[in-house]
């Protein structure tokens, strides 16, 4: 990829009158603008849902009720989950895709710039629908992010708003995915074959297929919920001959691949960062591509491991148990490849690399606790305990979120034209990694001891570990203010970033100036 014959970007020519101010952002069809919008949206939502997490942890600092009442506590856990998944992790990865996919492919923009604008701008509408429900009669949804009936059939107006918001967010994801797949398949620079593509583009291509194959299923499930609520149908209402367990099957057919939608782009970012700071090409590129595809395919045949306790034949339990364990194989391939990339590399430990190494170590802990939960008889004991909460937070915080931090620090100099403050970046990293482990590691012990999730009060013997977790949560939460400060400071100014930014960086995005011009690759680069 270093043999780029013609890979410069043109600066803004001013051929057209560009709107300014708010109209620039409302009407923009530029992939970089839309990428920035996604990332800012995700950051705002991160602080909103993070505040909810701190309220949850404040309540759980002691047994008894201190800060919330039980219903408001349930609203907090539900909204925290919904917003973190649909409002933070997914939009943040869409932001990366918008910024980086065209730059990495040598494409001038996404395939459908106007649809790209729509895909973003319906998201804030969904977010408003979700947040407004806090002040409506009955408060926000309190039935869990999984939207199970009968709770979701019985709730008030906020449940309708949430279903509408989920529809909108799903539509946004489908439009975004169509754009990403079409861009990758049709708009690569001449000579850039699929197997020469940066791994980030591969992981997003596969993620986009996952989204197209699962979001319509979620849309179907919530549509049926909506008609059960408002039009007298009984899809999931047992009293009318419906089947609430069918909702769980349909929901998890969506939601298990969703887990990989939340982590495959993270794998892509880490696969860009580690080779750069190890100054070696990615070890086993082809196996990384095949492992990503294998994980995606397997993700469709494991869904019922989320529902071992609803009752199913032993043969079905065995099938879902072993198919789930099978996912550890391609995931292991990835972890070994990252380690092999670092092996005997000329490593340096800038902030993106620190987050990437933390990702490899801590995501693996989340992967292993997932294997524990895959064992059907163990899962029946641990189902809906804090062990599950510990597991998925290791996957989503030290996995997905840390990869987002790694990616932001890695590409921020390219986006802004300035280097970030390395000292502050390292402070952010160490406080995050220490805080995160203090919050979530004790939750393994709480779960093994039998503390159920989604409760505002608990038995006395769980107090110490809960207090430790709460202290960690506040360290982790407030350390994100350092991140905000670093980002704002980098946008405002700082040491000028060079074109290549990082000594070991490879790829088309490092051939355009820093900051990346408004329009890039209007003339296709040729990859030899």
């Amino acid at each position, binding site marked *: 990829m270093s043999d780029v014959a013609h890979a410069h970007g043109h600066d803004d*020519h001013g*051929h*057209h009158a*560009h*709107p300014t101010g708010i109209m*620039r952002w409302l*009407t*923009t*069809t*530029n*992939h970089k*603008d839309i990428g920035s919008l996604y990332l800012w949206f995700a950051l705002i939502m991160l602080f909103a849902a993070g505040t909810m997490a701190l309220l949850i942890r404040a309540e759980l600092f002691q047994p008894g009720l201190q800060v919330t009442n039980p219903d408001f506590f349930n609203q907090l856990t539900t909204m925290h989950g919904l917003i973190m998944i649909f409002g933070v992790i997914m939009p943040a990865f869409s932001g990366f895709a918008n910024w980086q996919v065209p730059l990495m492919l040598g*494409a*001038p*923009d996404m*395939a*459908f*710039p*106007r649809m790209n*604008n729509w895909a973003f701008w319906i998201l804030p509408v969904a977010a408003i629908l979700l947040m407004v429900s806090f002040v409506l009669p009955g408060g926000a949804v309190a039935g869990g992010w999984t939207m199970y009936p009968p709770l979701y059939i019985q709730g008030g107006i906020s449940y309708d708003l949430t279903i509408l918001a989920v529809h909108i967010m799903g539509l946004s994801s*489908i439009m975004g*995915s*169509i*754009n990403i*797949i*079409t861009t990758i*398949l*049709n*708009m*690569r*620079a001449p000579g850039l074959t699929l197997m020469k593509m940066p791994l980030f583009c591969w992981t997003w291509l596969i993620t986009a297929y996952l989204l*197209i*194959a699962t*979001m*319509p*299923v979620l*849309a*179907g*499930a919530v*549509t*049926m919920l909506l008609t059960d609520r408002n039009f007298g149908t009984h*899809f999931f209402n047992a009293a009318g001959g419906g089947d609430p367990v*069918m909702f769980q099957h*349909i929901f998890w057919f969506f939601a298990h691949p969703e887990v990989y939608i939340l982590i495959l782009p993270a794998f892509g970012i880490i696969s860009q960062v580690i080779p750069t700071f190890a100054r070696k090409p990615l070890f086993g590129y082809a196996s990384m591509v095949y492992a990503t595809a294998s994980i995606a395919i397997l993700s469709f045949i494991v869904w019922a491991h989320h529902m071992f306790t609803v009752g199913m034949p032993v043969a079905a339990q065995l099938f879902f148990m072993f198919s789930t364990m099978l996912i550890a194989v391609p995931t292991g391939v990835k972890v070994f490849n990252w380690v092999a990339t670092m092996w005997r590399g000329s490593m340096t430990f800038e902030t993106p690399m620190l987050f990437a190494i933390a990702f490899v170590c801590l995501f693996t802990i989340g992967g292993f606790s997932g294997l524990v939960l895959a064992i059907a008889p163990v899962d029946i004991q641990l189902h809906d305990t804090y062990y599950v909460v510990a597991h998925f937070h290791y996957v989503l915080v030290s996995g997905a979120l840390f990869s987002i931090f790694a990616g932001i620090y890695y590409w921020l100099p390219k986006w802004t034209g300035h280097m970030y403050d390395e000292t502050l970046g390292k402070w952010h990293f160490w406080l995050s990694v220490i805080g995160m482990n203090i919050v979530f590691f004790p939750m393994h012990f709480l779960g093994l001891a039998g503390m159920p999730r989604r409760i505002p009060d608990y038995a006395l013997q769980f107090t110490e570990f809960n207090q430790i977790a709460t202290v960690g949560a506040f360290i982790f939460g407030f350390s994100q203010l350092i991140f905000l400060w670093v980002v704002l400071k980098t946008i405002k100014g700082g040491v000028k970033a060079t074109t290549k930014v990082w000594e070991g960086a490879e790829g088309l995005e490092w051939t355009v100036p820093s900051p990346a011009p408004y*329009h890039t690759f*209007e*003339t*296709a680069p040729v990859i030899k």
Partner: protein
Amino acid sequence: MSAGGHSGVACVNDKRGGNKYLTAALLALFALGLFLFTLFTGLR
């Protein structure tokens, strides 16, 4: 024309658009079909 219209024109001009409308239409049809299939699953 909107701010990014310029890059939209570039997409059209430089042949890299290829079969993008066909690709997008097939993906959208698949998504719609899956949505309807899910609803029919519920009707059983």
